[in-house]
């Protein structure tokens, strides 16, 4: 990992700022419901969907349980096909390997296809510091590179940017006319990037799946930029996290069917490249050299953690982000880390420490929508709860929370205290109840009444009514006949 940054992620502040960003709200509010609809339609077409999810989860669990053996198998197979395998324990090691390759191969012009793993290790800055130019070639990533921003979504990295913002950016940075239509803007990027591809001497990509059995690197995309990146430059460097290995070629039949439908709602992604070694004798394209960098960077901490290990099943489809009601309103940047959204709130506290990211697991209602759509059945709400528990035990939550929990538990441990608390509350609430409801509460409950009224405590709690209720026989009496409204106020 890139070293524990001391400052903690200000998740509450980030969220408040995101909620004020009306352009962001608009973009996400259109994009994510559209992704969800497409996903649901694509999933509904596959009768064996649930079987696929179960199989995918079990294959990943198998792969994780045999990770050492599968990675060495992968290494042997890639090597046998003429590739070179490098191991990186952390981000620094990975950066050194890749900048070293750029230097020794004389690579000055580097093209990259979309890869969260290279974002994670902050590769671009290292390559630039080593004197190379680095161009992100995924259209979304290209936009972000021009804007000097980080991706905000696993599969739609620039989802937070409007068409107008892109037009403005292309005009300022590329001198292009301010086109209104996305297809014109895409053409501007296509033409600019074509010459970068043709001139590049090294291509850097991520890896979606690495097949141990055959030494095959699998890269999934829609645009074709990853095909360019892995076809034209003479050197291809692929960077993968240790969890990307799958045992057999046949397993791809499960994962590829799940990935596109879950993420974008496509039946299949446009391009899936199965790369087995560098170009072979007689071939005129494909890289002359293929390097695979296998990165740990904190993942073994997840692997060693029985409660959180299943986070390593993640195939980065983005479905959890697309259904998350929190993500839909705050976007990926609010999470203050490379991986945002529900899965990010699980992995970031482990990769970067609870001291820095201990607040992330709390920014969720635990609604469970993410677990419901996850194609590899990661139980994200359960892991958020586990991490909340650890944040409390590690002393990463504030004193008011602690005091409240202690106080609540002390009072609720005995019905007599609960009764007394109720009496005290009913006496005190006279100060704030107006016309049967509470419009404003003091700190620490003021957050509640910012957006909703609060109900007053009932004049007589249920426990005091029970004795008389018991006399009734339900069949003879009904609620609404006695209490005219029967509703919460």
């Amino acid at each position, binding site marked *: 990992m890139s070293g524990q940054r001391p400052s903690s992620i200000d998740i509450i502040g980030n969220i408040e700022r995101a909620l004020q960003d009306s352009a962001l709200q608009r973009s996400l509010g259109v994009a994510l419901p559209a992704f969800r609809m497409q996903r649901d339609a694509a999933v509904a077409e596959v009768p064996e969907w649930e079987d696929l999810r179960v199989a995918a989860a079990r294959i990943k669990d198998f792969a994780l349980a045999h990770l050492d053996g599968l990675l060495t198998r992968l290494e042997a197979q890639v090597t046998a096909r003429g590739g070179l395998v490098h191991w990186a324990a952390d981000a620094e090691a990975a950066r050194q390997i890749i900048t070293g390759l750029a230097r020794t191969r004389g690579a000055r012009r580097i093209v990259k296809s979309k890869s969260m793993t290279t974002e994670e290790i902050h590769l671009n800055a290292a390559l630039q510091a080593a004197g190379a130019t680095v161009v992100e070639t995924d259209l979304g990533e290209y936009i972000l590179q021009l804007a000097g921003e980080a991706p905000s979504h696993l599969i739609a990295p620039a989802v937070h940017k409007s068409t107008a913002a892109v037009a403005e950016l292309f005009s300022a940075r590329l001198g292009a006319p301010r086109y209104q239509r996305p297809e014109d803007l895409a053409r501007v990027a296509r033409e600019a990037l074509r010459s970068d591809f043709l001139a590049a001497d090294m291509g850097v990509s991520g890896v979606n799946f690495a097949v141990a059995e055959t030494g095959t690197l699998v890269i999934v995309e829609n645009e074709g930029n990853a095909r360019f990146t892995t076809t034209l430059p003479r050197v291809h460097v692929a960077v993968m996290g240790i969890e990307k290995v799958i045992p057999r070629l046949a397993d791809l039949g499960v994962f590829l069917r799940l990935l596109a439908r879950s993420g974008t709602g496509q039946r299949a992604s446009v391009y899936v490249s199965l790369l087995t070694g560098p170009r072979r004798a007689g071939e005129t394209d494909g890289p002359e050299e293929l390097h695979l960098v296998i990165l740990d960077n904190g993942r073994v901490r997840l692997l060693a953690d029985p409660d959180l290990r299943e986070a390593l099943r993640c195939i980065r489809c983005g479905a959890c982000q697309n259904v998350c009601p929190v993500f839909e*309103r705050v976007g990926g940047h609010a999470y203050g880390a490379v991986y945002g959204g529900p899965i990010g709130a699980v992995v970031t506290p482990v990769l970067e420490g609870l001291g820095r990211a201990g607040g992330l697991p709390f920014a*969720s209602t635990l609604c*469970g929508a993410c677990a419901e759509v996850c194609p590899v059945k990661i139980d994200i709400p359960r892991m958020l709860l586990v991490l909340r*528990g650890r944040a409390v035990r590690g002393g990463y939550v504030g004193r008011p929370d602690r005091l409240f929990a202690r106080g609540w538990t002390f009072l609720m441990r005995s019905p007599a205290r609960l009764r007394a608390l109720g009496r005290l509350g009913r006496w005190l609430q006279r100060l704030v109840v107006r016309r049967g409801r509470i419009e404003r509460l003091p700190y620490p409950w003021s957050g509640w009444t*910012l957006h*909703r009224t609060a*109900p007053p405590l009932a004049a007589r709690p249920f426990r005091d009514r029970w004795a008389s209720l018991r006399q009734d026989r339900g069949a003879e009496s009904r609620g609404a006949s006695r209490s005219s409204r029967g509703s919460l106020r």
Partner: protein
Amino acid sequence: MQPVALFVTCLIDQWHPEIGEAAVRVLQRAGCAVSFPQGQTCCGQATFNDGFWDDARVLGRWFLEVFEDAPAVVTPSGSCAAMVREWYPRLFRDFPALAARACGLAHRTYELSEYLVRVLGVTELGARFPAAVAYHPSCHGLRSLGLREEPLRLLAAVRDLRLVALPRAEECCGFGGFFAVKFSALSGAMLSAKLDAIESSGADVVTATDASCLVHLAGGLARRGSRVRAVHLAEILDAG
């Protein structure tokens, strides 16, 4: 007569006892002998969800004591049922004697609509509720307990009740316990979207299996001066 112990929940006990009363009458009408263990307080969900597992364990232990002898525990709250069912066994994982009791209790604890439909096989309770009703599936009931059809089947059997479709029904209302206070603006934004959906549905009443979500929704509806009322499922089943 099916003997059941009512866990009324701390929220309903102190804020909305009328929901508890309705639940008792509904259960009685469905042929249950309802008891109310007087020692009950809070299942510990609020502190548990906030990360205070040691505190939750104290309250969970108390809950185990109180409901130890209950043949079945029924509660008009999906999230409290989920707490006992899904989380107690895990919470006491490292305490073998308690874990066994927690597992036993987990198997006998039910949310109200779940108990009526799945266990008793009852949907017709003779209720009458002349209103257009939107049903909000509370997240824990929906996803932890898998309640999809049960509340709807009960509502379908209520005379003069017109069920209206709620757009994006399965999206969270934004309550989330302390989340509503800590992430107030975010919770408010989620609430606002849910209220827009409720108001656009043409419903007179929004209902749910969880009083916590309903308190949140009712507070939002009151704040915007909406004519829509929030009514717990138990009260609708008890109306007539």
